[in-house]
């Protein structure tokens, strides 16, 4: 792999950019791999990357039915934060956030990590108590967050109206080193590094069946033929239930569409990420100048990648009160992604009833921020059969009543 650098840009500028390599190879599937990862989104590619980097397992294929990073990795609102209430959540999300800090250097790929700060607004008395409690929990967990008053919120984000008649801003939970990153680049950076380690990333290769012998996985059937493997990692987000059904077990998940939208590009006006959970809206400004807005989920199961139209109205209506200038903006695009939601709103990183099959799913509406930590933990789980980061996230925690309840702690938006 030729490294990207300022020198490389200068060198290529001298020869009409003819020397750039493909970022990753386009191989045909081999007969057998040690590990097959289903799903070449951020989580799947990160899992493959850390299998190679931390455990030296490089005979790995990453199968993707569509194109690399074309699912939720390319559909989220790119927010990175780790201000969760429960200890297991804080551990894995803070691991992820800390890995984002050096990801561009580690991968030699600019993921444009921008720790611009994240404010979660408190707009009810209940939220004040909730976020103050989270700030205390974060202090104990070693996650740097702080409770800030409404005037400080206004200083950090001057376009906000903190005296709204219905939902005034009463303060916020502020994480200074939270922020955003370029979501596509995260997938591309991992893909390039995986390909460089000799892993095969096989796109347009849909898994159609899981082959088992004596309760142990032996391979998968795909649209490009059948491929053998010793271990199988299912990292397919919204379609986790579909692939689990092929393997013959059920998951405690329901898949729904989550929407987002962006406005026309405007001049820089907002250099923090603001989440307003009471009114179901969150917003940040991209480097292109577009206001990136996260909306609500549908209340019913679906796989449409579209979402119900009325959620757009609800989201924008809520934002207009807190950000009055939004009322003059035109919206450019709207899209949806299929998110898999668990009962306690925490993910599943787990062994399964089938030997050799591991599952990483249930990230719900907030998986992007977790990509590097999720991959790190999943790789350890698959390589060693156990990881301190995944112990609490077993798919069997529900029957034991050992929830990691973030549905109350983190509100609606993740």
């Amino acid at each position, binding site marked *: 792999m030729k490294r990207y650098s300022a020198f490389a840009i200068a060198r290529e500028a001298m020869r009409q950019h003819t020397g750039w390599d493909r970022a990753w190879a386009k191989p045909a599937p081999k007969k057998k791999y040690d590990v097959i990862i289903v799903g070449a989104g951020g989580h799947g590619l990160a899992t493959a990357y850390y299998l190679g980097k931390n455990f030296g397992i490089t005979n790995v294929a990453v199968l993707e039915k569509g194109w690399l990073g074309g699912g939720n990795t390319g559909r989220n609102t790119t927010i990175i934060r780790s201000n969760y209430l429960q200890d297991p959540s804080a551990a894995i999300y803070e691991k992820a956030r800390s890995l984002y800090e050096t990801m561009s250097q580690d991968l030699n790929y600019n993921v444009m990590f921008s720790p611009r700060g994240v404010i979660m607004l408190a707009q009810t008395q209940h939220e004040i108590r909730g976020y103050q409690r989270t700030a205390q929990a974060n202090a104990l967990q070693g996650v740097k967050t702080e409770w800030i008053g409404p005037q400080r919120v206004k200083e950090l984000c001057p376009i906000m109206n903190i005296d709204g008649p219905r939902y005034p801003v009463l303060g916020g939970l502020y994480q200074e080193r939270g922020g955003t990153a370029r979501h596509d680049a995260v997938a591309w950076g991992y893909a390039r590094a995986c390909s460089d380690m000799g892993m095969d990333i096989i796109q347009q290769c849909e898994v159609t069946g899981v082959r088992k012998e004596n309760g142990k996985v032996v391979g998968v059937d795909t649209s490009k033929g059948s491929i053998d493997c010793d271990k199988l990692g299912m990292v397919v987000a919204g*379609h986790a*239930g*579909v692939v689990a*059904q092929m393997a013959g077990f*059920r*998951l*405690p*998940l*329901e*898949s729904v569409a989550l929407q987002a939208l962006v406005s026309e590009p405007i001049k820089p006006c907002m250099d923090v990420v603001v989440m307003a959970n009471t009114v179901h809206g969150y917003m940040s400004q991209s480097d292109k100048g577009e206001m990136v807005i996260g909306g609500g989920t*549908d*209340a*019913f*199961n*679906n*796989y*449409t990648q579209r979402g*119900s*139209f*009325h959620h757009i109205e609800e989201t924008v209506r809520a934002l207009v009160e807190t950000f009055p200038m939004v009322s003059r903006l035109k919206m450019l695009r709207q899209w949806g992604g299929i998110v*898999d939601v668990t*009962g306690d709103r925490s993910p599943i990183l787990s062994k399964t009833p089938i030997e050799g099959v591991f599952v990483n799913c249930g990230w719900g509406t907030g998986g992007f921020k977790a990509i590097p930590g999720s991959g790190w933990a999943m790789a350890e789980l698959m390589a060693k059969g156990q990881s301190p980061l995944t112990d609490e996230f077993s798919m069997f925690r*529900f*029957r034991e009543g050992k929830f990691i309840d973030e549905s109350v702690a983190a509100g609606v938006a993740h």
Partner: protein
Amino acid sequence: MLTLKCPYCGVDADETDLHAGGEAHLTREGPGASDDAFEDYLFMRENPKGVHFERWRHAYGCGKWFLAARCTTTLQVFGTYPAQTLEPPQDIKDAISAQRPGWSWGNFK
């Protein structure tokens, strides 16, 4: 927008008039049930990509619960029926079979 016909009052209700109530035809386990059965009832879900059966409430109408057969990929509605039943009526099953031959869901097909 998703539109479902309320089987009680006959109104074609928009999604915004309805409240989604999750998977239908759950067996509601009680005292004496096994751990596996309870886990299935409380947490495990079919979550299919295709034919699905769900509970809905006509929240801003007659207020009653009913059941719907729907496709989660196309949002096509195969039919709605009253909630006082343990399995989908034959005419609903026939309507699904006409559109999705060979479908199955849980123990139904």
